[in-house]
């Protein structure tokens, strides 16, 4: 399988700087999927910088430690993207490329997934402050997922 090596791409972009050290984990955490999908509430979580037009945009460069709650019934035409580090020209025309909100509604309507939470979640990638991310943003996100009764989180990075 031929695929782009983004570690090399990133290093080539910043030849004068010490190579960025990506987090390297040797194992992954695990929570078994207990419920059938058709009975599960599935939340979408996107790092593509998507926000609703009446919400504050993300800081488009890096280290925005906030997330947005996007009502699951939001019209796709009311969504905008604030993110300087990937080509979102297609996603601006069809947000489902990185935030498949319409497809999720269809899958819930036809019973493929059990239900949607009231809101999905979006944030902006390129957060290099891991301690702040883990101690500030993520606990708030997890608390909301639990409060909304989410059974399965579906993460779509851009």
């Amino acid at each position, binding site marked *: *399988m*031929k*695929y*782009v*090596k*983004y*570690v090399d791409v990133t290093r080539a972009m910043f030849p004068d700087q010490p190579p960025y050290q*990506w*987090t*390297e*984990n*040797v*194992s*992954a*955490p*695990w*929570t*078994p*999927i207990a419920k*059938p*999908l058709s009975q599960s509430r*599935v939340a979408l*979580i996107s*790092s*593509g910088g998507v926000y609703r037009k009446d919400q504050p945009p993300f800081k488009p460069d890096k280290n925005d430690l906030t997330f947005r709650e996007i009502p699951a019934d939001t019209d796709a035409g009311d969504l905008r993207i604030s993110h300087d580090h*990937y*080509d*979102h*020209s*297609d*996603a601006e*025309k*069809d947000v*489902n*490329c*990185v*935030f*498949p909100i319409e*497809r999720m509604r*269809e*899958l819930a309507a036809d019973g*493929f*997934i059990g239900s949607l939470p009231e809101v999905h979640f979006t*944030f902006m990638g390129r957060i290099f402050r*891991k301690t702040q*991310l*883990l101690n500030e943003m*993520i606990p708030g*996100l*997890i608390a909301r*997922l*639990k409060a909304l009764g989410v*059974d*399965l*989180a*579906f*993460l*779509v*990075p*851009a």
Partner: protein
Amino acid sequence: MIARAVEEAGIPTVSLSSAYDLTALVKPPRTFFVNYPLGHTSGKPFDRQNQTAILKEALGKAGEITEPGAIVALPYVWDDLTWLAGA
């Protein structure tokens, strides 16, 4: 990193990714790899069939993954392969 934290908190996760090497380093619990240019992780623009197929495979098969950190490559191919020329 978010997937790992959510999973650790007791909510199972399934992720898409278009960056195989980065995902292999970070190891989210369950990942389906979509070999598309960045910005199209959940499918091609205005291609409802393609977007639906990606979502159905990832969500529908998430429960079949038994190995934490597994990355399953989905078979979809971007139409114009010149973007992979340097890979």
